[in-house]
């Protein structure tokens, strides 16, 4: 079993700019990402930290790259990923999450998510594997319908 990376891809009927906002702005993340939000707006080269609605630490790391999408180039949002929401996972070294957002034509935006550098973080590898699928589908549903996935789906995803 490869512990190198998880790779996901999803097509969303929204503009690259809308998807970019959904990934990088707390007003959006808290609606589809387990109520998680950034403590401060992320900035390239700076540390970041996310928290849950009740203020508990979720994830921290460094925002390594933050280039919004343009007509000519895809958006790139790259962060190191140190899990804080679970004490066991918090012992593992930081991994890396890379978002790529680009226009796919026909009113669609292609979102690619690579969660890599997981060689030495087997618990995180296992923990995020199915979680990202739910997050990406929830983001798509929110952007396309204005509503995130119903809570029950999240509970099922977490328990499975």
């Amino acid at each position: 079993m490869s512990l190198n990376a998880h790779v996901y891809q999803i097509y969303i009927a929204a503009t690259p700019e809308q998807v970019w906002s959904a990934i990088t702005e707390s007003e959006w993340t808290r609606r589809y990402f387990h109520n998680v939000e950034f403590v401060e707006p992320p900035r390239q080269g700076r540390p970041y930290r996310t928290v849950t609605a009740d203020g508990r630490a979720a994830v921290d790391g460094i925002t390594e790259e933050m280039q919004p999408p343009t007509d000519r180039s895809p958006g790139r949002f790259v962060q190191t990923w140190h899990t804080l929401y679970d004490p066991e996972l918090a012992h593992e070294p930081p991994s890396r999450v890379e978002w790529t957002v680009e226009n796919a034509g026909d009113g669609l935006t292609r979102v690619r998510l690579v969660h890599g550098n997981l060689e030495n973080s087997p618990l995180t590898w296992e923990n995020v594997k199915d979680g990202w699928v739910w997050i990406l589908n929830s983001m798509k549903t929110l952007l396309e319908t204005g509503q995130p996935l119903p809570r029950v789906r999240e509970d099922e995803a977490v328990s499975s």
Partner: protein
Amino acid sequence: MEQGGEVFRALADPSRRALLDSLFSRDGQTLNELCAELPGMTRFGVMKHLSVLAEANLVVTTRYGRTKRHYLNPVPIEQVANRWISKYAARFTAALVALDEQVALDHETRTSGRAESA
């Protein structure tokens, strides 16, 4: 976007399911590795099936230098499951749970009956 059709078509072929199974057990394989894993398929066949899987967004490739790696993308399968399977499976599961409870109840009645007669 009607993506479900592409996903079902891609999954309908046993060779493509074998490729997905191979990536599920070891993600990020190169073409050479996949060919070695599936000796029953020609190299051309593996390439052809991978391109159908990529069109259905079930396989995503990344390049690391000159190496192209293939990853299983579970997102469309979850979408198909949400749309087509959970709707029907919920009733099926409920029926199974009811059956299970009934069997347990019958068993209990029978064993308690035996206990009484003993």
